[in-house]
């Protein structure tokens, strides 16, 4: 090491000439090797001495020595997280040197950083294969208005129509989200999980990527009756004290359902229709557009297309919830509070409960200047029977009464 760095400064020719000298010993093989090694060592030492003597102020050039540069101390003195952040900072400075890479499709960006409604262009939809319908023999003639033409035996969906319908659906999602509604994103085909979860995360909504259990809306109390619910205020902060009241409330229902594969979710869409819940669906050329309220004519078989659509709707929901929270910061509440909820009262004031309750109810119904609590979010509530809990039997009776009450059934009897 020492020789190398010193020689660097002084020139290599001087070293090369004197370095290897012919052997002069003629003893046995082992002895000769040993003595030759000794000779070489002596020569090296003498050479070193010569050069060191010749160069008075030969300080070695500070060069990289991997063995000493990464000592254990320096390596582990930094935490892994620090090392990673440093690496990332360097990457951002030096990572894109060399050449410019032409814009290209990066699959992860659709899921990690989805496009917003403003980014919807015909080029994006075309690249995501949204225009590709099914074979012409499999079409649903109700979709004729969305079809541009036929190519290679399949129907081609008109992308302008797709874009227009997608923007409309995005507006619906945004508004429902702005008004604090429950948005449920449903995508039950394999591969749609991440898209659906990301959309729900962005819009502060809910997701479903496994089979929809039939009756979750029409028979909600049975299937979802034991799910935990909570009461939140206008800033989405949980409010304690409503546990008793929540115990006997009806199951929650979504205010908007976005379905990415309507062909496999007929039951879900039918239940929504029975209960006046608007639905958005990705309608392929073989799907029935009347199953949903707001169809988006597009290719439901392409994961890339689904990711674009779910991403756009998720971003719209994100925008809506941001508007809602921004308004809440200013004191403007964009939704009517939950019905039939009373403020959690003190135990001593139980005697005055009925009077207070009606007052509270009045205040609740006034809205803006009143308490701003709402169940997350329950806009269709049942009529509350004014029972107090005396024992467990009463509880059972009360539950039965609530469950079996005719107002729980949303199907209107037409005589």
């Amino acid at each position: 090491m020492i020789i190398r760095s010193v020689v660097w400064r002084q020139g290599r020719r001087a070293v090369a000439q004197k370095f290897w000298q012919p052997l002069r010993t003629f003893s046995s093989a082992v002895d000769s090797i040993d003595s030759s090694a000794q000779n070489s060592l002596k020569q090296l030492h003498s050479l070193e001495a010569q050069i060191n003597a010749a160069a008075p102020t030969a300080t070695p050039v500070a060069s990289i020595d991997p063995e000493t540069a990464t000592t254990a101390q320096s390596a582990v003195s930094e935490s892994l997280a620090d090392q990673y952040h440093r690496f990332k900072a360097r990457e951002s400075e030096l990572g894109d040197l060399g050449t410019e890479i032409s814009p290209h499709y990066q699959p992860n960006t659709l899921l990690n950083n989805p496009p917003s409604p403003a980014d919807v262009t015909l080029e994006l939809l075309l690249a995501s294969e949204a225009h590709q319908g099914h074979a012409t023999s499999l079409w649903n003639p109700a979709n004729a208005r969305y079809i541009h033409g036929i190519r290679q035996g399949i129907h081609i969906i008109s992308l302008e129509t797709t874009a227009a319908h997608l923007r409309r659906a995005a507006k619906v999602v945004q508004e429902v989200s702005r008004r604090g509604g429950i948005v449920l994103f449903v995508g039950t085909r394999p591969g749609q999980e991440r898209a659906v979860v990301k959309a729900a995360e962005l819009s502060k909504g809910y997701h479903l990527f496994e089979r929809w259990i039939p009756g979750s809306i029409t028979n909600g109390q049975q299937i979802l009756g034991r799910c935990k619910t909570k009461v939140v205020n206008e800033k989405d902060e949980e409010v304690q004290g409503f546990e008793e009241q929540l115990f006997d409330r009806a199951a929650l229902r979504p205010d908007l359902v976005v379905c990415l594969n309507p062909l496999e979710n007929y039951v879900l869409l039918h239940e929504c229709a029975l209960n006046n819940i608007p639905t958005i669906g990705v309608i392929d050329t073989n799907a029935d557009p009347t199953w949903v309220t707001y169809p988006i004519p597009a290719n439901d078989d392409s994961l890339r297309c689904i990711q674009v659509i779910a991403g756009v709707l998720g971003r719209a929901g994100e925008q809506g919830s941001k508007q809602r929270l921004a308004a809440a910061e200013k004191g403007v509440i964009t939704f009517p509070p939950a019905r039939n909820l009373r403020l959690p009262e003190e135990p001593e004031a139980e005697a005055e409960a009925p009077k207070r309750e009606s007052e509270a109810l009045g205040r609740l119904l006034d809205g803006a200047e009143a308490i701003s609590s709402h169940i997350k979010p329950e806009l269709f509530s049942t009529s509350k029977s004014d029972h107090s809990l005396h024992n467990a039997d009463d509880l059972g009776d009360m539950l039965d009464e609530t469950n079996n009450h005719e107002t729980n059934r949303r199907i209107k009897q037409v005589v």
Partner: protein
Amino acid sequence: MIIRTLCRRGFFQEAVATTPAKRIAPQFSRQIHGTPRLNEQVGIHRVPKLNEHESLVQNGVPGLLSAQGYKTAWSDYMEYLTYEMNVAVSGKEYQHQTPEKLLIECARDPQRAYLFNLASMAWNNHFFFKGISGVNAKPKPSQPSSDLLQLINHDFSSMDTLREDFLATAEAMFGPGFVWLVQVNNHIRILPTYNAGSPLAGAHYRRQSVDMNTQNTSPVNSAGSFGDSSEVQKGKPKAPFGGVDVTPLLCVNTWEHVWTTDYVPQYGFLHGKRAYLEKWWDKINWDVAGHLAKVSKSANGAQKNRFV
């Protein structure tokens, strides 16, 4: 007669051959046309745009390279590199990778040694021109920031010593290469790399910091020199596997095509190179180097997670 003359000069042939095939990948266009034009930028990789591109093309780098010298060192050479890279990566799964990631991947893959060379040269050359950028308008050479100056004084005792060491290292290297100023664990070091060697941490297999022709003192037989029980490893602290974690701060490109256009040696080969090196030292943009030193130092530096 005129037509015959033009034919003999190959004018019409060239006109026919230069009709570009727009959507054909570069390797196919070579088969069809024979010798495709180098300046067809239809591939994935394109020549990066430097900040003062127009003024550089017109005037070169004032005080270092003439317009022709800049054209040779940057425009033509980067065009060649990007073309070759497009040919090498088109159709492969790594075709959209940036040169930095590509060179780290290929550094340990002997089958893709050529791709390493191309990616590394592109990265090194861009880094070199980035390090002398932004100084066209300024008449005086810039000075390093106080933090960087402190580091330099600690490791090299003064700026003049650093300059002497650096330029001596660059001059002593025979043939093409780069010389880097790198930061390692809060120390500043000089690192030479021959040919297309890279100083980056992950590409240490191809750092090429020694001239194999003259510095061959490492033992040929390295059996038993690795592992917990070996003599070499006894008593040494366990180092992380892989290269040293370096941050390059600045570099000089000592490839001949960069300086031979403008620095004709009058009294010998070394004089041309020496003059180029000294002029380059005055063109260093120390803001870039200082910024990189700061970036590599800050451990907690509020880095935004781009994936959340």
